[in-house]
């Protein structure tokens, strides 16, 4: 039973990260469309922000692995 709950926790973490990375990517695309000349800066910022969001999700996933 606890294993199932951990799986639900991992799924919730992934939903959160999905929303977060979606926001980052979507806004970055809008920004690039508005200012194509700044696309290089925006892209590296986008990857950085996506990595931060993902980091939070990975902590949750790791905890759900350890909590058996």
């Amino acid at each position: 039973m606890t294993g199932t709950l951990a799986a639900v926790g991992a799924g919730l973490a992934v939903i959160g990260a999905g929303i977060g990375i979606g926001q980052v990517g979507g806004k970055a695309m809008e920004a690039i469309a508005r200012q194509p000349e700044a696309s290089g800066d925006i892209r590296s910022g986008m990857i950085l922000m996506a990595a931060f969001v993902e980091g939070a999700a990975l902590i949750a996933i790791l905890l759900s692995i350890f909590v058996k």
Partner: protein
Amino acid sequence: MSFSFFWRKILLTFAHVLQDPSKIMSQKHIFHFIFALFIAFSAAAQDHGQATESHGTDTTMHAQAHTADQPMHAEEGAGHEAEGHGHAEYDPAGTAIHHISDANVYSILDFVRIPLPMILYAPETGWDVFLSNKFHPGHHEDGHMAYKKYVMHHGSVFRIADPAYTAEEAEVEGFTHKVEEKEGKPVDVYFATIGGTEYRLHPRTTLDGGVLGGGITPFFDYSITKNVLSMILVALLLGFFFIKAAKAYKANPDKSPKGVQNVLETMFLYIRDEVAIPFIGKEKYMKYLPLLMSIFFFVLGLNLFGQVPFLGSVNVTGNLSVTMIIALVVFVIVNINGNKHYWQHIFWMPGVPVPVKILLAGVEFMSLFIKPLTLMLRLAGNISAGHIAILSFIGLIFIFGKSGESMSGGAIGTAMAIPLTLFMMAIELIVAFVQAFVFTILTASYIGAAIEDAHHGDDHAHAHH
């Protein structure tokens, strides 16, 4: 001419090995044999799988080993006991974990097993240095022999705990696995069957150092494992390519780069211009460029090396201990280079009221450790997840084929698995580059934040008003 000679040599070696399967384990032929496998691995798969297993054992011995295996597999499955069935239930999760773990033998496609040096130390018996073919590793990387109290199970070394066992070498008939209660927590206990008796094995060292109940091994393992070997290989390969490129620049500085030099230059310039200079600054980036480049190319090389199909698919950057050390290096370098303003921003944030300063000090102090922690988890998680996804798709063949009972099911599984695996591999190729890049860009941003000058101190004051 040399090309056709090469192919003839490969085919001759292959023919030679087919005639005498016991030659497979001899190191002399292994390198030719690897190439030969690429040509004809599917046709000869079954013969060889069995050929490597037999080392003077008869068929009854085989039957025993397999029956001893079965309860273990049934237990490892998600609660499915295969009662009365001839086949144990296929366990995709267990198989995936087995294949992404580090091992003391380098297996290629289940028929070539390259022995690796074992360097073991136990306080009671002292140092033991030998090659891992002393264990005669067979199917599932289980050793068929025990050597000096050590046995190999699922590619890793275990030590026999029972003081009654004293033999120098002995035949291992099988491994069993039980779950015992220890202080209210379920603990995995492994047993090796030698000469009809089940000998208890010492617990395996766990990631947490035994805090969560896994226990700590009473022996120390300094072996050159599959992951260590891959790291050495990738480091040598990178050294070779970079020295070659550097020589090319020296020889013709005015010519445009070509070949491997061109590939490296593109990536090198991208990291320098898009990562190092914007994040660290034009004046100081040269000091940190070697670190950033080493991290980028080492991680990228290992990511890509793990993607090569049929080459053992090592999971080095998916191993938490490897990424932990890289993250630790970054942590140390960031913090010893941190200037006054960096530490001031952590412990006494300028430009905010005192209660907020205290609150921020706690948060910033935690983030000091969370930063390398996420760096470590992100890389390991992404690469391991990719490997597990590929292995799960390949596992479809066995799920549909009911572990070899249903041929048509296996065919359907294969038809599904091939496009899915190819798709996943393409994704993984992108992930290999993106994760190496993310690791580098985050390192650069942490270093940049640590050595930044206080020129924006006024901005804080302005923002406050």
